């Protein structure tokens, strides 16, 4: 692969987005976990639950700030590195980003300050409301950014305007309730909840192994296992597959994930394992499970899933149709205000395929002069690289089932076995902490790498979306981000570890006082373990 401005810009976007998403899922999930813990505190008035809220809140804060900081990069990068994209779809794509600020960022950022600083300044219920507003704000921001992302996968509610040379909004409602966006939202937010559940479970398991903060750890495990069980089911069952029949490219993505080179008779088998070979168009050493792919991909026994070869042919037809639109558009642009109605009609008839003509821009300046061979090459370009998708998807799904199993197991022990966790299980929980991050990053690889060669599916090719920058400029900022983000990552992880080792701050006097007043109701059982914090 030649390393030009497009590849560098893509690398920069991928790195900064994946780095940003190291912090986002934990923010999404932990904000809700904390709000649940504080709700229990307000309902039961037991100080241990406030200590839990504060302890997990401290870890939340260390993580949250990097999510915010690295998120600014994302919002600016569209304009900095992808200025033609910004011009071409800003009319639609900008709105959810602005709404994210209006509805979500202001809410979470304004109240997160009070969450940390407001313990002594607000009533109990007042503070609880603030905590919930932080959680709701965080989750709303996920909604809006995924509406923007969903539109890139399935661009509904918009059409091309030859006068302004860009896509323009025709129906905001369609953009907002885009089926792909909604499925993505549920999937992504659930993934965040699983991340927080595994994190809380793992850290608590570590405390149990070290025999520290027993009461905090046990209660945290109860919350994490219940919350994690529900979200692990939701993340797997409500995966964003529902959108895979929406567009040609989504079908292509599905075929690539499956390594399905040719259309198979329905219901198609699922390839559990194999080595996809892009050149030979076959998957070596494939192990198939009959019927499964057809069932999960189409939820029917008779619907065919098109294979890659068939989709490439469809792509070629659309390129030829797009060339008619492109030719008409050039005539309309030349004529300015006095465009010929016949040209306008010709453009309208083929405007849906305009983006496919742009695929030829990679090979020559004027797509209208393309040879048959170049058109064939451009059609082949609509196939993303198969092996990264194939493997990323399998790792993600495998981990997803792993989370369900873990959560069922811990939920069972916590609810019915009196919290007697075997030590190997606790070790497993600690080692599992990185797993949800791996699954989430794999999920993004499937979603965004699978969208190639488009930035906006079928509308705008990636190669055409970049800014006219020099390699030096992009290389400089890329180097800057890598250096900068590495330092921040080391600092954040070291602080996380420091505060996990330090453990919760327990107000001994208050806890003692609480147990004294509730001594009778608890049947004489002194939960002295709540205070047992061995000296460090």
């Amino acid at each position, binding site marked *: 692969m030649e390393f030009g401005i497009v590849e560098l810009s893509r690398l920069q976007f991928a790195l900064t987005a994946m780095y940003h998403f190291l912090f986002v899922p934990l923010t999404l999930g932990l904000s809700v976990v904390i709000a649940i813990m504080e709700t229990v505190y307000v309902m039961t008035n037991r100080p241990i639950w406030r200590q839990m809220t504060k302890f997990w809140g401290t870890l939340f804060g260390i993580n949250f700030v990097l999510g915010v900081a690295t998120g600014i*990069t994302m919002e600016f990068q569209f304009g900095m590195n992808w200025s033609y994209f910004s011009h071409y779809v800003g009319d639609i794509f900008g709105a959810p980003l602005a709404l994210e600020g209006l509805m979500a960022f202001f809410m979470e950022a304004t109240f997160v300050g009070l969450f940390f600083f407001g313990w002594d300044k607000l009533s109990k219920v007042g503070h609880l409301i603030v905590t919930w507003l932080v959680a709701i704000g965080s989750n709303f921001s996920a909604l809006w950014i995924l509406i923007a992302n969903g539109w890139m996968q399935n661009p509904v509610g918009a059409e091309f305007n030859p006068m302004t040379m860009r896509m323009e909004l025709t129906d905001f409602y369609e953009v907002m309730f885009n089926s792909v966006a909604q499925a993505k939202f549920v999937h992504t937010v659930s993934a965040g909840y699983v991340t927080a559940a595994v994190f809380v479970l793992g850290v608590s398991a570590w405390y149990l192994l070290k025999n520290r903060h027993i009461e905090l750890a046990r209660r945290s495990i109860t919350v994490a296992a219940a919350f994690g069980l529900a979200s692990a089911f939701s993340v797997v069952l409500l995966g964003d597959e529902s959108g895979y029949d929406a567009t040609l490219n989504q079908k292509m993505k599905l075929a690539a994930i499956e390594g399905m080179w040719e259309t198979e008779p329905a219901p198609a088998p699922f390839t559990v394992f194999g080595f996809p070979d892009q050149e030979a168009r076959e998957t070596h050493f494939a192990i198939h499970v009959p019927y499964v792919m057809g069932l999960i991909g189409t939820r029917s026994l008779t619907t065919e899933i098109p294979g890659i070869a068939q989709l490439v042919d469809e792509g070629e037809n659309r390129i030829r149709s797009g060339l008619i639109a492109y030719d008409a558009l050039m005539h309309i642009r030349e004529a300015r205000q006095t465009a010929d109605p016949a040209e306008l009609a010709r453009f309208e008839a083929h405007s849906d395929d305009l983006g496919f003509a742009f695929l030829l821009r990679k090979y020559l300046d004027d797509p209208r002069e393309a040879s048959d061979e170049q058109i064939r090459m451009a059609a082949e370009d609509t196939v993303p690289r198969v092996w990264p998708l194939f493997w990323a998807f399998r790792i993600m799904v495998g981990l997803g089932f792993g989370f369900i199993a873990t959560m069922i197991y811990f939920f069972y022990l916590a609810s019915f076995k009196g919290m007697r966790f075997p030590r190997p299980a606790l070790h497993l929980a600690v080692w599992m902490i990185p797993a949800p991050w791996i699954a989430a990053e794999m999920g993004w690889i499937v979603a965004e790498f699978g969208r190639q060669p488009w930035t906006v599916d079928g509308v705008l090719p990636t190669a055409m979306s970049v800014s006219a920058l020099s390699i030096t400029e992009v290389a400089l900022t890329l180097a800057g981000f890598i250096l900068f983000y590495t330092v921040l990552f080391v600092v954040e992880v070291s602080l996380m570890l420091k505060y996990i080792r330090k453990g919760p701050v327990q107000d001994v006097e208050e806890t003692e006082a609480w147990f004294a007043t509730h001594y009778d109701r608890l049947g004489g059982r002194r939960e002295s373990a709540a205070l047992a914090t061995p000296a460090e």
Partner: protein
Amino acid sequence: MILHTLIDYDVLRVIWWVLLGVLLIGFALTDGFDMGVGALLPFAARTDIERRVAINTVGPVWEGNQVWFILGGGAIFAAWPPLYAVSFSGFYLAMFVILAALIVRPVAFKYRSKRDGARWRATWDWALCASGAIPALLFGVAVGNVIQGVPFLFTDDLHTLYQGAWYTKFVGLLDPFSLLAGVVSLSMLVMHGGAWLTLKAEGAVRDRARRFGSVAALIALAGYALAGLWMAYGIEGYRIVGAYTTTAASNPLQFEVERSASWLSAYAEHPWIMIAPALAFAGGILTFFGLRAGREVSTLLFSKLSILGVISSVGLTMFPFILPSSSDPRSSLTVWNASSSHLTLFVMLVSTVIFMPLILAYTAWVYKVLWGKVTEDDVTGKSDSVY
């Protein structure tokens, strides 16, 4: 949907031009004092406890304040996509420096007091100072460049091209007039930070903040006056020539534009816009005396009025231009050719009308809850709940 045609396209465009100003001013008024406090930190606060007091005066609010900037970016993207596309990629390395500052700043706030080492804290203190001062300077530099015009042009299919190699693109931003504009914005925000510390801090920190703040107010006033004279005699403005419509589709290449006369001829055409520079001067002078006298609430208010005057004077003077092009004036972005579609502007206006009052209400409530001075007692021994 036909509802959006209830408001004419050109009216919506003017509303969004005003809202763009509101967002920039909102950012300068709120995050401005955070940056000012950051820039003042190593000078106004000397000991660790003093610095923690200074940091904690903005501790609970900087996060919300910064959203003004993020929303500003989002709103430019949504309402003025060509402006977003051209300015963010055209000022590429300068944007990266601002971005770096905006990433370091939150981390510095949050992490500084999480460890005890003197070197750890000193490092973050300087990070706070730089991440406050550098963007404050660069925002002004950017405005200085916009006033003089930026070297970019559109191709026929609206790709943006820029003039010059990457280093001239970056170093070229730092011409004398733009640096002067940068000094104005930096000193203005330092003045604002000084007014904020006067209100929220006590003792030595407050005294030093008053002193630095009043010096900054004088520099801002002198710089602003000098920039005005410079614009009157040394910089040509831009004009749209010939007949044009204000409701046509947003095609940036549709107007003929020429450079002639001074930007300041706008004051001859619309004398009422004198109110903006008048506010800037009056606010600045009153802030200076307020800081000298140690008044608190009124000084912060005057400082806000001054910033409001400075920023709106730039916008009003240049109207309808938003980003003039010095290398190809025809490519200049104006209110009439660089907006989103009619429908998008309408949808965004409805959302803003619903959410902006809510945002202002809960932000005001948060400031009310946090009302009062931050003292040394407030931060001693509370490293888990405050910075």
